[in-house]
């Protein structure tokens, strides 16, 4: 392993990796792209099918415009040129999970061209990674390999996909991973993809080549498939970079081929070579007219803010950059933060961020809190702030109330009452205690009066002890000063 690492670092000194990613993202439409079958994941095999997505003789595709709308949304969000006229094409190949023997996709004229994915950087800047295109297509079914043969589940057949093709602008596995994370999060923000790599609703292929640093010409490109986690993206690309550099340094050539990532061995192996590659015989799909997207339609499609825009909004509102990144990593946290800040009023962004990135994030990460089914209301947290500001709650007590309210959704005032956490701020209620402490501590009083002002903490502490911690420290401070100064 050590020698590999050395080889790797030497490799990167002399060789520059060139990486472009192709992402297939399932669109969150309720029904499939060319029929009305549901798209829900996890149904019993072959229960969400009809003549169209089974590819039965005579069946024809009928376009779901909801899928088009989501592609438009992605195109607008990434600043693509959205084609007024794009054309469906058939990609022909034989495979059991492809019931028609072709996939309906877009080829020469995709719905979106150009554009870029914003990738927020730790220093607060935003890197734009250029896109080649985004096109719409249908997903295939799934082959399920059983002990006594292979079975085919066509529930996934016809689920809408966008294929998002990035330009080869990435120069390391780390950059590729960051790009992929940013893209995934952006699609989640747009509400068009659930970003689930494990279930395969967000899938990535990587095109990797290397070239000697300083040269312009690209090396031979290898396509990596079957990468289904962010960790594997880095592993697969790193392994492939090293493999290619090693080949070149041995004086060998790198073959243009498709390789499969084996996540158990952490390496790539050949799937098919260029010679064996399918000739997909693309041609315009005669069963569907060209897709016409009017400018009015494009104008009507709303685009929510993307993560990098949220980050700059939050930092402008006074939220520290690190907190802003934590919040924006999860659109539910963004939403929660916004609602708390709205209910709590001006200048509460930072305070709301503390709650969201602190207690809320902690509970969510521990699995103790599920925001989708949580019972608390964001305005209850604003209410908690108010109780604290009024002096009803100490900061320690406020934490306790917060933990309880996030779990139970009980109003903070009720929690304060039930737990007896209310802070005593009423001067008349505190005067007797203050007087008692002064009466019991003549020597400390004398020292204080002779100038040892830091004994004030001692007096307040004594009073707190007597009040079982519920005295308002500010009021106690003021009362002692009034008596002793």
């Amino acid at each position, binding site marked *: 392993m050590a020698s590999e690492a050395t080889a790797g670092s030497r490799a990167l000194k002399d060789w520059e990796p060139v990486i472009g990613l192709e992402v297939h993202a399932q669109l969150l439409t309720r029904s499939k792209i060319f029929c009305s079958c549901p798209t829900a994941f996890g149904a019993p095999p072959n229960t969400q099918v009809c003549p169209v997505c089974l590819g*039965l003789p*005579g069946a024809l595709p*009928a376009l779901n415009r909801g899928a088009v709308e989501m592609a438009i949304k992605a195109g607008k969000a990434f600043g693509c040129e959205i084609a007024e006229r794009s054309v469906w094409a058939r990609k*022909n190949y034989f495979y059991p999970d492809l*019931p*028609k*023997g072709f996939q309906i996709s877009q080829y020469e004229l995709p719905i979106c061209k150009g554009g870029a994915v914003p990738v927020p950087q730790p220093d607060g800047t935003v890197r734009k990674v250029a896109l080649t295109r985004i096109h719409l297509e249908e997903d295939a079914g799934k082959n399920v390999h059983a002990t006594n043969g292979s079975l085919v589940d066509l529930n996934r057949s016809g689920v809408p996909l966008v294929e998002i093709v990035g330009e080869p602008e990435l120069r390391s596995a780390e950059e590729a991973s960051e790009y992929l994370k940013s893209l995934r999060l952006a699609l989640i923000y747009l509400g068009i993809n659930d970003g689930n790599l494990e279930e395969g609703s967000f899938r990535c292929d990587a095109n990797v080549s290397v070239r000697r640093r300083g040269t312009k010409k690209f090396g031979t490109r290898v396509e990596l498939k079957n990468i289904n986690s962010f960790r594997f993206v880095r592993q697969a690309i790193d392994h492939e970079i090293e493999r290619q550099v090693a080949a070149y340094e041995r004086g060998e050539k790198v073959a243009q081929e498709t390789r499969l990532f084996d996540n158990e061995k952490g390496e790539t192996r050949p799937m098919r070579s260029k010679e064996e590659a399918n000739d997909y015989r*693309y041609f315009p799909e*005669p069963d569907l*007219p060209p897709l016409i997207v009017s400018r009015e339609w494009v104008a009507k499609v709303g685009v929510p803010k993307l993560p990098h825009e949220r980050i700059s909004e939050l930092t402008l509102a006074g939220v520290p950059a690190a907190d802003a990144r934590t919040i924006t990593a999860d659109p539910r946290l963004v939403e929660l933060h916004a609602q708390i800040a709205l209910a709590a009023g001006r200048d509460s962004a930072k305070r709301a961020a503390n709650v969201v990135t602190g207690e809320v994030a902690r509970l969510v990460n521990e699995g103790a809190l599920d925001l989708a089914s949580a019972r608390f209301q964001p305005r209850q947290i604003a209410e908690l702030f108010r109780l604290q500001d009024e002096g009803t709650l100490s900061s320690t007590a406020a934490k306790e109330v917060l933990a309880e309210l996030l779990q139970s959704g009980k109003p903070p005032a009720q929690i304060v009452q039930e737990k007896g956490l209310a802070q005593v701020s009423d001067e008349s209620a505190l005067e007797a205690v203050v007087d008692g402490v002064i009466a019991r501590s003549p020597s400390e009083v004398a020292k204080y009066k002779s100038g040892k002002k830091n004994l004030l903490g001692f007096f307040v502490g004594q009073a707190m002890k007597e009040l079982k911690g519920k005295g308002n420290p500010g009021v106690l401070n003021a009362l002692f000063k009034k008596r002793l100064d």
Partner: protein
Amino acid sequence: MNASLLPLGELSRALDRGEARPSALLDECLARIAKLDAKVHAFLRLTETEARAAAGAADDRRARKAPLSPLDGVPVGLKDLFCQEGVETTAGSRILKGYVPPYDATVVRKLREAGAVLLGKLNMDEFAMGSSTENSAYGPTRNPWDLERTPGGSSGGSAAAVAARFVPGTLGTDTGGSIRQPAALVGCVGMKPTYGRVSRYGVVAFASSLDQVGPFAQDVRGVALLLRAIAGHDANDQTSSLRPVPDYDATLDKPVRGLTIGVPKEYFGEGLDPEVEAKVRSGIDALKREGCTVKPISLPNSPHAIATYYLVATAEASSNLARYDGIRYGYRAPARGSLLDLYEQTRAAGFGAEVKRRILLGTYALSAGYYDAYYLRAQKVRALIRRDFDEAFGSGVDAVVSPTSPWAAFRLGEKVDDPLAMYLNDIYTVPVNLAGLPGISVPSGFTGTGLPIGMQLIGKPFDEETLLRLARAAERALAAPQKLPPLVRT
């Protein structure tokens, strides 16, 4: 009265007047089929039980004077590529033997809704590829006028069934002439509507940009009634048109005086049988007598139509037929070994020779490095062929007239070993599909040996109304006595 001998248009009126009863009509049809279809082989299977139930229900509606449509109670046969729920549908292929679709094609649903009595599935060239019905995996259909001869194809069963008076009306499909050519060869009326006029949903596809569903009947009125029943937009077929469907029957007898008929010189050249030409010219004269102006025109790119067609149609077919892989339905070879072995053996044994030939041609035309030279170029020529027609219509022509087929019915086996000669059957019909226009074949007399001859009329896009009026005028002017094939007379 022998209601089953009446042409569909007249039969519909007889039913309206209560002079015929659906069940009795069905019995007559079934009796004639039982007696004669062993010789003709038009039907691949009958759906007698279902038909009797449908006829019984039509009897009740007709008795109550509450028919669903002019077709209520009319027996109709279907080419065996229309999916009918629960009824085996093979497209004439071994690869779909035993395949039972779980849904109705849109046109099948529409016929049911019109009250038509669906009584069976009709023979055809495998996947509609052919012009003689000899490419059926289930044996050829014979021409009722001469049992040694072909009824044409690919909708040969649909044409023969009408000519033999097995059924007053049938549906077929026409990709390059597969309705019009057999209609001509058996002496009935057959129409290919404008591309997009009739839904293709549930119709086993051959070439998606060319396939169109259309009717056969003994008279133009019958074709008009069937077309009205099946035409119209279908959300399940996005190439179907949103244009409203006119009442073709209502305008059928409107005079054609003042309409201009274009006669393209390219359609009367070399290869046309002189006897066929003479009868078509007499058909044109008949239209003149009805008051039409006849105008010589040129469609200069039509001679390229066959070459263009065999690139476009085969390219689409190579893709459309990819789904027959033995995995999900239909025939599967008992292959052991790899997935590729299963595909190869299933398709080798499941498809006939002509289908394989066209899949190979189409695959080649779409292959990397050949696409531009073949498929793309063919699409460009296709646009030129369409433009020729547009220019003719733009110059004041209301319809174009030509022979339907260069010759009358040929003998079984005569052209089966010569694909190129077979392809020339469609020389006058193929340009119409490439241009997406409506075309109709009407009987225009007989050869000296008593074989039917057909005349083709080609109309403007979505102007089936004028086309049917002209066809009706020709029918009227030719005043052809309703001659029965010798077979039926016995």
